[in-house]
């Protein structure tokens, strides 16, 4: 009795194994997502939300275990993946424009983007430049004019450090508008976009640079007015009233993408599996809904395409940082 049951079980198990093997060449045993920051940040939520979605649509067996590995603005996790877990097939790591920016500026000492495999993106958050609702500044060119004629009268705040993505976006715009010495631009760094917006409302700052999703609550309430969206086309929903920078003659696109990378020696089967899984998440209606709700815009790049995209953005940030003297 016992033996037969055992045999039956084994048979079933091997059948199941066979079945899954025929579907996928590879299936993760302990799928894991590293969020290279403490719980609560953007990377953490990329892991958790995508993980929840993968589980809901049954794209992975079981749950995606989220591990937080903070330090060095993602550098600790990057180094750990490169050095210690380079052969791990079950591992993906959350990344964003901040990762590309730091790679480009050499902020992960001894590491570069070719040491890992880039899987795919799950959306992008376009940059915006906004002013308080009662500001005399009406358009992007108003602001740029003021910055040109009296650069010290305009203080712009954002949620990233100097040289970070929120800062670079303003510099890109200023550069395009013909401001040669970007050092004259007064950028004030805050711990997160929300704090900077409060200071715009309180009158300490004249303008805000950040991501569309960060500003959503204040845009809905009309407390701040967006003067430029750094997207190729106008955004949907509440944001559709606001012009892009391109419309105003400043051809700058600033997308804060979110995506994943994987260890450098991940097998091709595993790589394909994860690329496909992230693609499935992206295509699901549930994900479309959460993108719409959190103000993320579409950015659908997988596998080699994504790899090329990241390489591009690293190259252009390196170029810009060198141009303005952030790196040598």
């Amino acid at each position, binding site marked *: 009795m016992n033996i037969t049951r055992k045999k039956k079980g084994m048979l079933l198990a091997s059948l199941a194994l066979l079945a899954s093997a025929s579907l996928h060449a590879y299936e993760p045993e302990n799928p894991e997502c590293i969020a290279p920051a403490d719980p609560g940040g953007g990377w953490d939520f990329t892991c958790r939300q995508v993980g929840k979605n993968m589980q809901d649509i049954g794209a992975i067996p079981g749950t995606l275990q*989220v*591990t937080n590995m903070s330090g060095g603005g993602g550098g600790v996790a990057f180094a750990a993946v490169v050095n210690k877990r380079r052969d791990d097939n079950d591992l993906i790591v959350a990344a964003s424009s901040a990762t590309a920016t730091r790679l480009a500026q050499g902020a992960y000492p001894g590491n570069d983007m070719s040491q890992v495999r880039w899987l795919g993106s799950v959306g992008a958050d376009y940059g915006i430049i906004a002013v308080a609702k009662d500001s005399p500044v009406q358009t992007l060119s108003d602001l740029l004019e003021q910055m040109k004629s009296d650069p010290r009268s305009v203080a712009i705040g954002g949620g990233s450090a100097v*040289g970070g993505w929120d800062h670079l976006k303003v510099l890109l715009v200023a550069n395009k508008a013909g401001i040669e010495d970007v050092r004259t631009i007064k950028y004030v760094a805050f711990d997160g976009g929300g704090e900077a917006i409060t200071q715009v409302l309180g009158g300490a700052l004249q303008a805000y640079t950040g991501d569309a999703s960060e500003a959503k609550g204040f845009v809905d309430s009309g407390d701040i007015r967006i003067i430029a969206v750094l997207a190729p086309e106008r955004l949907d929903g509440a944001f559709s009233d606001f012009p892009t920078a391109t419309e105003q003659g400043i051809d700058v696109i600033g997308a804060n993408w979110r995506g994943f990378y994987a260890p450098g020696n991940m097998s091709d089967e595993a790589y394909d599996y994860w690329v496909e899984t992230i693609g499935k998440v992206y295509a699901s209606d549930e994900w479309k809904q959460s993108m719409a709700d959190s103000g993320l815009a579409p950015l659908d790049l997988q596998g080699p395409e994504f790899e090329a995209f990241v390489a591009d953005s690293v190259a252009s940030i390196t170029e810009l940082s060198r141009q303005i*003297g*952030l790196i040598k």
Partner: protein
Amino acid sequence: MSDRIFGGIGLLFALLFIWAAFHIELSFISDPVGPRTFPIIVAIVMALASVVIIIKPDVKPQWPRAARLLEIAIAAGVMVAYALALPEVGFLIATAVASAFLTWRLGTAPLWALVSGALTSIGIYTVFHLILGLSLARGPFGF
């Protein structure tokens, strides 16, 4: 005397800190205050406090005998070993060994120390991993 030595070390540390602050590499773009000023101000405060401590020391604390100092050093060493061993041998084993050692050194009989170490380890594992769902170090045996 202890306080005087402490004040001296504090003063030295503050001066080193100021020296290190002057060697902070400045970025191309900088704010009016810059990254050096504030640390230097704080280090000056520490230097002043150290001077006051040197001039007006408190009564000497009771330092332990050399054997006890060694004991503390060994305990710190065990903690370092524990930190290094965690990712290698996994949470349960490392924790059981380390806490058994500590409780033994604090005066528990060796056998009971092992029991207490094992129970501590399992108890913490239950609360933190099984109930709160924190990912603890996973060793070769999966725990």
